[in-house]
């Protein structure tokens, strides 16, 4: 694929040429944008996605900001309800204006999506940004062949004949590693094994060479061996097409494998964002520590207990005041009550490494080095 | 005779509601031309006389004809209708009033001449009468027509008088014995003479020949046995176009071989459509609008149309409310209630007024005295026994109790009463009787059965009645021909008792009555015979075998576009053989 700037599409403001890799532009991103043009390929600024319901306003995503460059993989981790999937669906514009409220900015390759009309966003869907889903059996239409679905995905954005589209579909199936693609193109989704089916879905998502690929728990439903193959496949394709990839998962192992950067979400907010090494070796947020501690590891003695995070995930209607994590945080006492009243901001603590916590930085480093790391 | 019940009246309650709304919503008349000739105008006069030809006459019935085969039909409306395509030896004149009730020559030159002993009857055939295909009608055809009624396995629905009365040995009919000469019950000395030989004397033989279609000629080579009715060969003013379809109907077109000097029929409409199986309420709706000209059943409109007609002056002028020759009465089973005093008690206790109201009050009929209705020749009104045919009469509780004492059951007794469950009027009558007899301790257990099995399986089955303790039930009867014999014989003669379809429901084996019947066979003078019949009627009631009910009146409707309409006293409905249409 060509570089970041392409010919103008739709006349929306263009990103300036030559943007660097993610993370260097601290001030602009941290300040929440406004009308300043974005620097990164994908830039999310203060994204809020709320759902009014009879029981109250569900704040699934409540002020999220991050950046992503092409060729780079961002892993978003968090518990169920943290807002990871909602974020991705929001980026794709799949929420209905009737029953959702989206605010903030999403810049994709210089185009702002939140304020854009639905028809514009729809044109980008599938073509510039695509998504692969967790359960490929339910995510593909049972009545149409895999080939037909790929052809459909291709022809909605490319004016070509069915014959050409079919050839393309066969190529894509081959590219994702499905043997005998010219035969399998006429098979139905239920005729594939789990791993092959996920490959087919990937083929469908990538059929239009999207620059942004969002993978929502793509391996959760698969066997471990197949898991590795799929992850490899995604990485290979990313290299080939130079796409930006968001990998959403609750599995830290997966993230460790594939991500360049990690974004940890909690209660609809980003609590920590860092390059993957930093995140694993020098995490600076109590929630991240908790995640690491609850991960079973082979290199630990069996007799050692896991360290789960106490408490339960918060209600998204009645989000705890101040720091959303504070009811479950072992260290909230050390903040003189600030955790309960003031929402911590996502600030850069090291180059490329941000965290949102009231605990002073030194204190955190101390706790990590002395208390947490030895136990892991 | 019994009139066929209306089989299609499903869920009449809801129908009544929805159509009642429509009736309230505004009458039915759409102002078609002039006013009707007047309410009841057709009872004594011909309404809309005309000789204009043309138009399509549409006649419909809600059930179906029992058969279009003239030898295989029994109901009055069928024998009325058959005259359109059949001529018989004798037939009723097409005249209103009493003139229409006496047999008149049709294919025969004159009424039959009896021998001295009334066992042989001779008829002379008119010459030059033709079938629809031009062949001449000969005496052998009449003989054949009568012969075929002998095979009851093939022709099942018609009357069996000929098979019972003619002296034919063990002749089984022409389907089993193709040689007509072996049929000795009828002889044909030449091509134009027909002679009937009876087993015993029967002075009313002309009436018998006259009333049915069984002397309509049938060409032996065109007979199709059971299926002849699909296309009977016509000797009348109309012939069938194609076949008749049972359950659906057929079309009649003019027959150019018919002799126009026939005084009893006219050939006016260019086409006649006969429609069977039309929903009864729908039929009434179309009748009132003139889309259908004749309701073939001839028993009057349903309750809803009745209301509409009576409340709309314009419609009322096109309606008639004659007494139709039908008597709704209640026979009492003497096998289940053998003691005459107990039977008297039942009659005393009955609320005549309630019964009269249940049948429709004034429009429904007149309170009955004798069992023979007024239109029967020589019938006398007779005296009321153990009851009074008076409006407002609710029975006599004291006299009833006295009778109960006399029969040894002072506290009353318990029996079953039957009625036809698909006839709301009969159900109302049953309930009224249950209440009125209950006053004196006679407990009636009411049981309803559908009309189509009522006479064959239940009330008309002596065994059923015995087994179920059936003492009384609703019933109705119309005579085969309007003499006392035609009306009363089947009800009162011990010879008439049958295992199924029995009409002598009272199970009378009264020697005196049977003697009088024997006497009647020997009596030449009609007036003398009438006297005998009145005696039989009187004893029928004095021995408490029956509770008289109501002489039925039907409300009939004739659209203005119908010509030459009049009420025929013998058929008990409008005459069908002379109708014209606009």
């Amino acid at each position, binding site marked *: 694929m060509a570089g970041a700037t392409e010919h103008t599409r739709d006349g929306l403001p263009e990103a300036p040429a030559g943007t660097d890799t993610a993370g260097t532009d601290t001030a602009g991103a941290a300040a929440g944008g406004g009308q300043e043009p974005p620097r990164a390929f994908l830039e999310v600024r203060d994204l809020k996605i709320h759902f009014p319901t009879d029981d109250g306003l569900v704040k699934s995503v409540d002020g999220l900001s991050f950046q992503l460059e092409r060729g780079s993989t961002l892993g978003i981790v968090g518990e169920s309800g943290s807002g990871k999937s909602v974020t991705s669906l929001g980026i794709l514009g799949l929420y209905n204006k009737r029953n959702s409220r989206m605010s903030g900015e999403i810049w994709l390759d210089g185009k702002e999506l939140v304020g854009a009309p639905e028809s514009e966003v729809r044109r980008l869907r599938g073509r510039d940004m695509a998504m692969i889903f967790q359960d490929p059996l339910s995510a593909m239409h049972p009545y149409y062949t895999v080939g037909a679905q790929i052809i459909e995905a291709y022809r909605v954005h490319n004016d070509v004949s069915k014959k050409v589209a079919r050839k393309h579909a066969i190529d894509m199936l081959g590219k994702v590693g499905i043997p005998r693609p010219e035969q399998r193109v006429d098979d139905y989704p*239920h005729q594939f094994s789990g791993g092959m089916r996920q490959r087919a879905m990937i083929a469908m998502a990538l059929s239009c060479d999207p620059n942004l690929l969002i993978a929502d728990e793509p391996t959760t439903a698969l066997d471990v061996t197949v898991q590795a193959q799929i992850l490899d496949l995604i990485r290979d394709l990313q290299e080939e097409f130079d796409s930006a990839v968001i990998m959403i998962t609750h599995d830290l192992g997966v993230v460790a494998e594939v991500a360049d950067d990690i974004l940890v979400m909690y209660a609809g907010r980003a609590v920590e964002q860092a390059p993957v090494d930093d995140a694993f070796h020098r995490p600076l947020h109590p929630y991240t520590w908790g995640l690491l501690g609850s991960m079973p590891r082979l290199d630990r003695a069996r007799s050692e207990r896991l360290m789960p995070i106490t408490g339960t995930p918060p209600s998204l209607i009645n989000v705890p005041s101040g720091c959303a994590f504070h009811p479950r945080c072992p260290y909230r006492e050390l903040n003189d009550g600030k955790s309960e009243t003031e929402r911590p901001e996502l600030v850069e603590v090291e180059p490329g490494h941000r965290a949102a916590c009231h605990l002073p930085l030194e204190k955190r480093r101390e706790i990590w080095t002395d208390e947490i790391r030895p136990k892991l | 005779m019994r009139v066929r019940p209306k089989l299609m009246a499903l869920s009449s309650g809801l129908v009544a509601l929805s159509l009642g709304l429509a009736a309230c919503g505004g009458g039915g008349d759409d102002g078609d031309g002039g006013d009707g000739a007047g309410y009841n105008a057709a009872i004594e006069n011909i309404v809309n006389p005309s000789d204009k030809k043309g138009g399509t006459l549409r006649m419909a019935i809600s059930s179906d004809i029992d058969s279009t085969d003239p030898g295989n039909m029994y109901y009055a409306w069928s024998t009325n209708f058959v005259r359109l395509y059949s001529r018989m030896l004798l037939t009723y004149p097409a005249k209103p009033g009493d003139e229409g009730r006496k047999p008149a020559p049709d294919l025969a030159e004159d009424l039959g001449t009896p021998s001295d002993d009334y066992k042989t009857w001779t008829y002379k055939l008119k010459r030059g009468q033709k079938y629809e295909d031009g062949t001449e009608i000969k005496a052998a055809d009449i003989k054949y027509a009568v012969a075929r009624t002998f095979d*009851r396995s093939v022709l099942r629905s018609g009357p069996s008088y000929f098979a019972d009365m003619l002296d034919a040995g063990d002749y089984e009919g022409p389907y089993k014995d193709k040689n007509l000469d072996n049929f000795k019950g009828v002889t044909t000395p030449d091509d134009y003479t027909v002679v009937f030989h009876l087993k015993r004397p029967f002075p009313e033989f002309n009436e018998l020949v006259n009333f049915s279609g069984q002397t309509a000629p049938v060409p032996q080579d065109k007979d199709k046995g059971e299926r002849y009715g699909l296309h009977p060969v016509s000797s009348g003013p109309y012939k069938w176009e194609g076949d008749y379809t049972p359950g659906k109907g057929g079309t009649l077109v003019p027959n150019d071989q018919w002799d126009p000097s026939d005084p009893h029929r006219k050939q006016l409409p260019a086409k006649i459509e006969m429609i069977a199986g039309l929903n009864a309420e729908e039929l009434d709706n179309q009748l009132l609008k003139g889309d259908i000209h004749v309701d073939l059943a001839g028993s009057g409109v349903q309750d809803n149309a009745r209301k509409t007609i009576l409340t709309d002056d314009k419609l009322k002028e096109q309606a008639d409310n004659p007494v139709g020759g039908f008597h709704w009465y209640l026979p009492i089973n003497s096998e289940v209630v053998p003691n005459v005093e107990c039977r008297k008690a039942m009659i005393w206790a009955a609320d005549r007024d309630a019964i009269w109201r249940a049948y429709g009050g004034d429009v429904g009929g007149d309170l009955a005295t004798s069992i023979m209705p007024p239109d029967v020749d020589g019938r006398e009104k007779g005296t009321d026994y153990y009851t009074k045919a008076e409006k407002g009469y609710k029975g006599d509780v004291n006299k009833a109790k006295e009778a109960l004492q006399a029969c040894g059951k002072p506290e009353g007794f318990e029996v079953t009463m039957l009625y036809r469950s698909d006839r709301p009027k009969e159900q109302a009558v049953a309930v009224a009787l249950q209440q009125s007899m209950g006053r004196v301790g006679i407990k009636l257990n009411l049981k309803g059965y559908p009309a189509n099995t009522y006479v064959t399986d239940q009330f008309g089955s002596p065994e059923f009645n015995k087994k179920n303790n059936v003492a009384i039930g609703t019933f109705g009867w119309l005579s085969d021909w309007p003499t006392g014999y035609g009306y009363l014989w089947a009800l009162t003669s011990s010879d008439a008792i049958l*295992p199924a379809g029995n009409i002598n429901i009272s199970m009378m084996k009264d020697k005196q009555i049977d003697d009088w019947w024997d006497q009647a066979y020997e009596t030449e003078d009609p007036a003398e015979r009438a006297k005998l019949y009145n005696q039989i009627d009187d004893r029928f009631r004095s021995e408490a075998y029956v509770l008289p009910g109501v002489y039925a009146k039907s409300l009939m409707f004739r659209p203005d576009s119908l010509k030459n309409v009049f009420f025929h006293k013998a058929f008990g409905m409008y005459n069908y053989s002379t109708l014209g249409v606009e």
Partner: protein
Amino acid sequence: MIAFFIRRLVGGVVMLLVISAVTFLIFFGLPRAAGQSTDQLAARFAGKSPTAETITAIKERFGFDDPLAVQYGNFLKSIVAGDTYDTGVEKIDCPAPCLGYSFRTNQSVTEQIVDRFPITLSLVVGAAIIWLLAGVSIGVLSALKRGSLFDRAAMIVALAGVSLPIFFTGLLSLTFVVHAWELLPPVSYHSFMDNPFKWASALILPWVTLAFLYAAMYARLTRAGMLETMGEDYIRTARAKGLPERTVITRHALRASLTPVLTIFGLDVGLLFGGAILTEQTFSLKGLGNLALEGVIGSDLPVVLGTVVTLSLAVIVMNLVVDVMYGILDPRVRLS
């Protein structure tokens, strides 16, 4: 596939045998068990006041006194090998499958069924097309506009349609539309071949009345199916691919939610061939349902047996068609 067909075919034949035997027992065995004598049965076909000779002759003619098994055996034999029918004068050949001759009208039962079939067919096909189109489109619109005024109004009307009995709506519409306001000609059957326009205008009222009932059911069914389908994952995927919403609704959602609707449609149509009795009665249409009813009322056993067997056959065939249809529509169900 072949094995499947053969299995179902055999099953169908067995089913027909059972149905015919049960029908036979009900109409001939039950009354006897309840005490009806063959005399009484014979008297039903004898006009009024039959003599003893008449009754005997009728019993002999129709074999009422034969043992039940023999009578049933004759019936089966005539279906397989044909029969001859004696009118008294001639013997008529009744080729296999011979469904007998009516006790009452002496007509061949097969002839009557063939004669009345176009009427029921016209009634059913006309109504079916109307209710399918109306019901499905209303159901889809209701689902898409869920909660709106349209949706609520449509579902209330649908409830009325399902609850109101057909003789009520039918008679009401007859009274007003045909008789009071004279908007339509009286309901009757005209052959399609003769005059398609007359055929349609005379049948439109029963079509609409019958369709009203079914459209209501189908609207609710389609609505429920659509709502369920619209929540499926593959709908989300379709949108994620960038498909226009119209395509998502028609090619993806409708296609999937229609499958159960269409299969039920097949069954409903099959049943309606014999089940439209109330409609036929209300509008005086001489169809198959009416024939069956007349047979029952008149104790006309050959007609009853003939119609029951024919109509059961229709249902069995439609069941088979529906099964095959399901296999065609839903690839997951296909038997290989």
